[in-house]
């Protein structure tokens, strides 16, 4: 896998307030990344830097080998990296679902027939094809968010950045959106950067970056990151409930080889423990 996004010593501040402080990392093509951290730790700023809505104060970000130097580069990068925002209501432009999905393609100047094909394909891949002629305001939150994702997919980006896409949704909507994101990553090989507050979502990714006060606190696979329970607790960040439960058992002298991440893993582990005892 080749490097897709390279972040080199990037800093950014809003006036006096330093939001990102000398950050460096690389993201590979096809990876599924989660960005965790408190409000105001710089996650959303980072998301906006990826597709040049903001420009770093110092340092450099390259996307697929491209550094934004002029306006043409900016639009090239934006067609490679799509951004989905938190509030689904505020990102839909048109009065009909399919028109909205077509919006990005229309901006890129793609011929009408090709737009039609892409829009149909994008709507099918988020499972919203039968709603193509509906008005957006009549859809549920999860459906709206999937339409917003379809609008990005239709532009055929290599990477999608999602800034807390499930924060305003009910559990059903959250599940729909997460299923869609996972499908896009696995089947369409699109690089996903998911900013989230939900640990159960972060667990499903390949790699997690934990951010704190404009720096990267720790990074690694979910297993690696969530095994640092003390570090995360110290910064009052959550760990998945399954991890938390076994971690507490550890504190009471019951040790297991590894920490579980999902409820299923946790159940298996507990079963094993109980069997050993009896």
């Amino acid at each position, binding site marked *: 896998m080749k490097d897709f996004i390279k972040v080199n010593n990037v800093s950014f501040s809003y006036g006096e307030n330093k939001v990102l402080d000398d950050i460096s990392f690389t993201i590979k093509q096809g990876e599924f990344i989660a960005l965790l951290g408190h409000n105001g730790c710089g996650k959303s700023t980072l998301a906006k830097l990826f*597709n040049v809505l903001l420009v770093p104060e110092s340092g450099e970000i390259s996307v697929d080998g491209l550094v934004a130097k002029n306006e043409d580069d900016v639009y090239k990068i934006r067609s490679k990296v799509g*951004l989905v925002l938190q509030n689904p*209501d*505020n990102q839909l432009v048109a009065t009909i679902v399919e*028109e909205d999905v077509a919006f990005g393609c229309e*901006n*890129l*100047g793609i011929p009408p027939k090709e737009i039609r094909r892409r829009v149909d394909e994008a709507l099918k891949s988020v499972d919203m094809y039968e709603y193509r002629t509906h008005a957006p305001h009549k859809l549920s939150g999860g459906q709206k968010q999937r339409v917003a994702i379809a609008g990005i997919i239709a532009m055929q980006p290599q990477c999608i950045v999602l800034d807390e896409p499930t924060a305003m949704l009910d559990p059903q909507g959250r599940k729909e959106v997460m299923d869609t994101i996972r499908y896009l990553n696995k089947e369409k090989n699109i690089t996903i950067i998911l900013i989230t507050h939900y640990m159960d979502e972060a667990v499903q990714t390949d790699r997690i970056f934990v951010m704190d006060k404009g720096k990267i606190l720790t990074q690694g696979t979910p297993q690696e990151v969530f095994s640092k329970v003390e570090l995360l607790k110290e910064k009052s960040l959550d760990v998945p409930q399954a991890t938390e439960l076994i971690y507490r058992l550890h504190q009471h002298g019951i040790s297991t080889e590894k920490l579980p991440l999902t409820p299923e893993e946790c159940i298996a582990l507990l079963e094993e423990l109980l069997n050993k005892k009896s």
Partner: protein
Amino acid sequence: MIKDITLGQFFPTNSLIHKIDPRVKIILISVYIVFLFIAKNFGSLGFMTCITVILMIITKIPLKLYFKGLRPVLFILLFTSVLNVFYGSGEPIWQWGILKVTWNGIQTAVFVSVRIVVLIMISCILTYTTSPTDLTDALERIMKPLTVFKIQVHEIAMMMTIALRFVPTLLEETDKIMNAQKARGADMESGGIVKKLKAMIPVLIPLFVSSFNRAFDLAVAMECRCYRGGKGRTRMKVLKAGKIDVIAVIFSVIVLAGVIVCNVMFPQLTVK
């Protein structure tokens, strides 16, 4: 309650009028409105009224809905007819002080009222049979030549689309804010008009603030999707005029001829 407000109502049926190209429809409806003012006697006005009723029936939309469209202008209608009744010239039929009713006044009042009613019905046919997206789309294409005069046609059409998109969203939000304020003890129903208007301030301010937030978000979302104005933009749906549009144009030409013929044939029916 606030959801009752309807704007740019569209009733999808499979009628022929729905299938006419929106550009052709807008132009033809404008032409019909001009006809309406060309019609100068009761003969030609009656002819136009008949045509309008036939068109209304062809749309397969319940006539009840058309009369609903009249409700907002009912006051203007009454006002103009009353004025016209008293402002006529000629022999008074009935007089009380300076107020006098003349035969000519009554004729003018009826004539003007029918004209207004038909005018509204014709505009209703346009908005009821064309989706808002098609309307703005067609307007953008019709006004395209105006770019020569440095008028930002694309931007205007984009603003209209966004406005239409956000009307239901903002109405919903207004409802939510009103409920939230009521839950805090705000009283919006009682009192006179001044008190009621004052009670709207705590609703309007949050609505205003949230609209700005939405606008910022929308701008970011649009930029993310490579929006950079109308230049170099293509459209998914290409409008193409077909057979039905040709028929519509021919029909309209016949109607225009009819109006002119009626104008000439029934001079005795002209309002005197």
